[in-house]
Structures are given as C-alpha cells and as structure tokens.
C-alpha cells in the first residue's frame, strides 16, 4: 500500500497543506484520454496547456502536498511567458524577485559581471526568483479551478503495460489499488522517473563528478537580487560557491563538496553551519543568527532519453532529461517541453494533426536537450572541472582574469534561452523566411511588443495558431479569408491578428486589429510593406513568414505546420 507523508513538510516560510488522497470507487476500469504522471511544475503546466485546447486530463501525484524545499528558484522570461499562457504569471510576478545581473568573484575581486539585456518591449524580467513550492501552489490552484483537469493526490503508478492504442497503469493509493486505461500517458514524474525505469529506458550522456550542497537559509542581507558566484574562496579552496536571493529573506547558498566527502557528511548540521558561516564571513557578515530552511545535495548531470515518445508514453521535463543547474536549465527546459507538447497532443487527439505533428515533439525537444547539454557542458566544466586538464585551464583563467579582460567572458553562464526550432519539420519550405532582414525567423518564438502601458502582444494571444497580417487595407484579402474559414471549419483554432500599418480602424475578418502608427511592430518583425504575414504555432514559435501572403501559400504553411509533410522522417 502506498503511504505518502501526511504530516506537512517543515518550512520557515511556506504553509504546507496536505490534500486528501484520491480513493478509487470499485467498478469498471475507466478509459481516459490523457493521464499525466507527476504533479510537479511540468505535469501541472502540461495539464493546464491541454485544457486550453479543451483536452481533458487526469494528473496523478504520488504525494499529498507540493514539493519539499525551494528546488527550482529561477524562472526565465520564456518560462514567465509560458506561465502567462496557463494563467499563473501574475501570481508569480507578484511574489517573485525580478533580476538580470550576475557577478563572479575571485580573490575578493569582481572579475565578471553579466547584465542581461532588458527590452522595454518585453513584459517580464530576464529572470524571476521564486521558490518552487509557491509556483506549484499557484499551478495547483489553477488546476483545481479548471473543470477539465482531475488532480488525484496520493496516487502512485506502480506498473505499466503498453497496448496498441492505449496504456494500462496500475495505481497504488493509501486505500485500494486500481487500474487505469489511458489513450496517452505523459511521464512528468521527475528526475527519478518511475515510468522511465518501468519501461527500461536509459538516459544517455555525461555525469559530472562535482557535487553541490544546496542550502536555503533565512537571513536579512542588504544585497541586491543578483547572482553571486565565488570561485576558489579561501574557505573552500578550488571549489565554487553560488548565492541567490529568494523572496522572504531566504538565501540559496550552493557550494561544492570536497571530492572525498559523502552527501551525509556534507549535510551534517555541524558541517552546514561551519561552511555557511565561513561563506557569510567572507562577505563580512558576522551574523550567525540565520536559520536553515532546507538542504540537499545535487550532482551535475547532462543526460537525455534518445526519444521522448515511446508508444503511448510521452516523456517531459526531468523524466526526459537531466540538465546541469548552472544556467537555470532544469525546470526552464521542462516548461518549454510542455509548451511544445500541449498543442501537438491536443490537435493529435482531436484528429486535426498530420502523421508528423506529435512525432515532431520528440524531434524538437530531444534536439533542444542535446543543444542544451552541449552548452551546459561548457559551464559545468568551468564551474566544476571534471579532470586535471580542465582544472588547470580553469585555474589559469581565474588567475588571468584578475588582470586580463579577454578571458572574463569565460565566466558567462550561457543562461537558458527560448529554444529556436530553426530546422523543424513544421517550418514552411517555400516561404520568404530567408528574405527577411529582421524579425523572428522560422522556429524562433514571436517577439513580444509593448502596445500601451501594461498591454503587450503576448497578453492577447489565444490558444490557437496566430496569423499576423501586416496590412494597409480595411479588410483581409478575400482568398486568404476564405482559406482561414475553410481551416477553421475543420476545427483548427486560428487567431488572426491584423497589424494596421497606417493606423485606422478594425480590419474586417481579423479577430484583433493592432494599430502600428509608429511602425514599431513592423520594425520588430522586419516588415517593410503591407501584405507581409507571420504564421506562428500555438506555442508562439514562428513556422512561416511571407513578404506577400496569398491563400495558396497559407494553405502550404498550415499543411507543413500540422505535420502533414515528412511525417515518417526522424
């Protein structure tokens, strides 16, 4: 019998709530369209994504409360944009701490400062810090307000069997166990994914030796919300220490363990106290009155499954890949998985997708994970050098960085960014993508545009394909409009946004008209003339753009974006 912890986790700041476990009623085995295993940020975000397209899902949480400890604390702008689509960005913004700068120190000297660019066209800061419990709570609240989602607490999957068009799950609960049939199962069950093991799937890639203690303490420090990295500090020679501010006077201190120490030794209260005091002393803080909230040990790994769709089981987030935390690539990568998967699975279930659409989730996201692993490897090799050679080079760079500018960019973390599906099979083949001198290219996410005070393009995006037409006419082209009507008749969700480049009133047949009197929107999208258009997928990634849109080109663009071409390619 599965017995999750029913005593609320301890926390200095977060009021844990234990939810009642779901108990099955005896009787028939139910067939469900989508079962999401795991109610972490990835599972919950995916359920909300599916609900946006009207797809029902059932989320199984092995626990009866949200996660223990702050875990993922830094969310990128792209993650915030995804949160906005699923309705939790306001809550996260309200509680979170925005930031954009990072500092690296060696021998008491600041040797590198990263300043992420702030674009006034963007609604969200480059980074926002918030403890994962709060994010999960906001997602749980949103899920519970959504009638298309059923969240079952205290339900642990202990077995899976794959059929031709469904999977059968054995679920254990604090009461009786039960069996579930699902057309689709999404494995969002985290780094130690039970489904991954049950299916015998192996992650590929590298594990690094360096291990880090993660400790959250409550202390009032008069420091800005910026990332702090200390290399080779006197109290922890050869190793790296990181600090981040979290809301509520909580500070995350990460420090590398000496190579010969076990996690148990490192997490011993005396060891934690001594080292945290040493770190604070280095910052000239003699306050030893801090309190420990949570601690854990983390090791850097850069691993991914070869493919994320295995018959009827689809992997997302840490269940699919394990990425080094340097550069905030863990959860932030997972949200992009959800955002890529949600609309594809929804359209597939509704019978609106070509053979290649769902498969493109695996192609796009495995490729993204591999690129992230490549990038993250560079940061990890600098933060925690894996061999004598890498350590020598890293130490040489630290030493040179005190006086030589040219090595300092090597401190850069290559922070997680919105992925660019430049070679996706969903991108149009014969459009004008390469003729544009500016604007988001095929595969890249749309660029946000500030339309007025507290009003941005992304605020207005519906769960649909976005056709953005730049026009100087009072109505859409008749043939283009007829094509849109035909596609909508099949059931495809399409939002037509007209950009009135000469100002003027509502453009007929558009769902939304945005005036562009100062040509700001046009400039950001590299549009010089009326008649140009962008087609973006429901996850806001551009899949076609044209200098001159016509009905036939639009039909081709949709055909490709729905995976009707090259469906059997890998």
């Amino acid at each position, binding site marked *: 019998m599965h017995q999750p912890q029913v005593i609320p986790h301890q926390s200095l700041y977060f009021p844990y709530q234990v939810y009642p476990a779901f108990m099955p009623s005896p009787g028939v085995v139910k067939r469900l369209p989508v079962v999401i295993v795991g109610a972490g940020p990835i599972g919950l975000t995916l359920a909300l994504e599916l609900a946006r397209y009207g797809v029902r899902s059932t989320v199984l949480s092995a626990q009866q409360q949200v996660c223990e400890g702050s875990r993922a604390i830094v969310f990128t702008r792209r993650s915030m944009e995804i949160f906005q689509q699923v309705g939790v960005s306001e809550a996260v913004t309200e509680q979170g701490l925005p930031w954009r700068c990072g500092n690296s120190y060696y021998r008491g000297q600041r040797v590198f400062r990263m300043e992420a660019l702030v674009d006034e066209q963007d609604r969200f800061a480059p980074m926002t810090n918030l403890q994962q419990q709060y994010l999960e709570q906001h997602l749980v609240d949103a899920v519970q307000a959504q009638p298309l989602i059923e969240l079952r607490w205290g339900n642990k999957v202990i077995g899976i069997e794959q059929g031709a068009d469904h999977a059968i799950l054995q679920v254990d609960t604090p009461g009786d166990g039960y069996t579930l049939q699902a057309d689709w199962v999404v494995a969002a069950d985290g780094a130690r994914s039970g489904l991954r093991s049950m299916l015998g799937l192996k992650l590929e890639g590298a594990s690094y030796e360096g291990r880090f203690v993660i400790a959250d303490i409550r202390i009032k420090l008069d420091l800005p919300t910026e990332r702090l990295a200390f290399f080779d500090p006197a109290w922890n020679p050869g190793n790296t220490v990181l600090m981040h501010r979290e809301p509520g006077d909580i500070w995350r201190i990460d420090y590398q363990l000496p190579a010969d120490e076990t996690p148990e030794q490192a997490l011993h209260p005396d060891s934690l106290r001594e080292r945290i005091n040493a770190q604070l002393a280095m910052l000239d803080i003699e306050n030893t009155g801090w309190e420990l909230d949570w601690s854990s040990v983390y090791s850097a790994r850069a691993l991914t499954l070869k493919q994320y769709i295995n018959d009827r089981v689809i992997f997302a987030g840490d269940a699919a890949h394990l990425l080094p935390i340097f550069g905030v690539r863990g959860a932030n990568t997972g949200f992009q998985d959800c955002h890529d998967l949600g609309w594809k699975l929804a359209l597939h279930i509704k019978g609106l997708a070509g053979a290649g659409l769902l498969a493109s989730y695996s192609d796009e996201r495995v490729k993204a994970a591999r690129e992230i692993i490549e990038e993250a490897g560079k940061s990890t090799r600098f933060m925690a050098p894996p061999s004598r050679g890498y350590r020598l080079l890293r130490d*040489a760079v630290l*030493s*040179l960085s005190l006086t*030589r500018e*040219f090595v300092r960019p090597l401190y850069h973390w290559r922070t997680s960014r919105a992925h660019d599906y430049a070679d996706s099979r969903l991108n149009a083949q014969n459009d004008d993508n390469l003729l544009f001198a500016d604007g988001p290219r095929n595969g890249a996410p749309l660029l946000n545009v500030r339309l007025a005070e507290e009003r941005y393009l992304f605020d207005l995006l519906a769960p649909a394909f976005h056709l953005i037409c730049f026009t100087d006419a009072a109505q859409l082209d008749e043939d283009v409009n007829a094509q849109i009507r035909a596609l909508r008749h099949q059931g495809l969700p399409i939002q037509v946004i007209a950009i009135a480049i000469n100002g003027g009133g509502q453009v007929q047949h558009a769902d939304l008209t945005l005036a562009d009197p100062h040509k700001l929107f046009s400039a950001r999208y590299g549009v010089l003339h009326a008649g140009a258009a962008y087609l973006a997928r429901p996850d806001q990634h551009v899949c076609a753009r044209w200098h001159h849109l016509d009905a036939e080109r639009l039909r081709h663009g949709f055909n490709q974006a729905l995976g009707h071409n090259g469906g059997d390619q890998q």
Partner: protein
Amino acid sequence: MSQSISVTDLERVYDRLAEAIDRTGSDSELFLVKLALLTAETLNNVEHFDALIECAVQDL
C-alpha cells in the same frame, strides 16, 4: 610570411622560459597554461593554435 625567429631571440626565449619555470616552482604548470592562453590571444588564429598543440604533443 613571417620570418623564423632568430637564434639570438630563441636563446632569450629559452632562458626566460627556463627561469620562469624554476621561479614558479610547483605552480609552473599553471604558469605554462596561462602563458599558452596569453599566446593564443596574441596569435588570434585558432587553426594555427590547434596545429601548435598537435606539434607539441608529438614525441613526448
């Protein structure tokens, strides 16, 4: 084409490098890596630097 280094200059490099290695003692390896990075910056030619690495790892 750059002319090859004169014997006089090479002798000077030879002595300076030897003295610096002696002076840096147990840090001489770190010193040599720093020197290589500084040389790479001055050279500013990554293919050329790759070739120098290949040459230097020969016949150890």
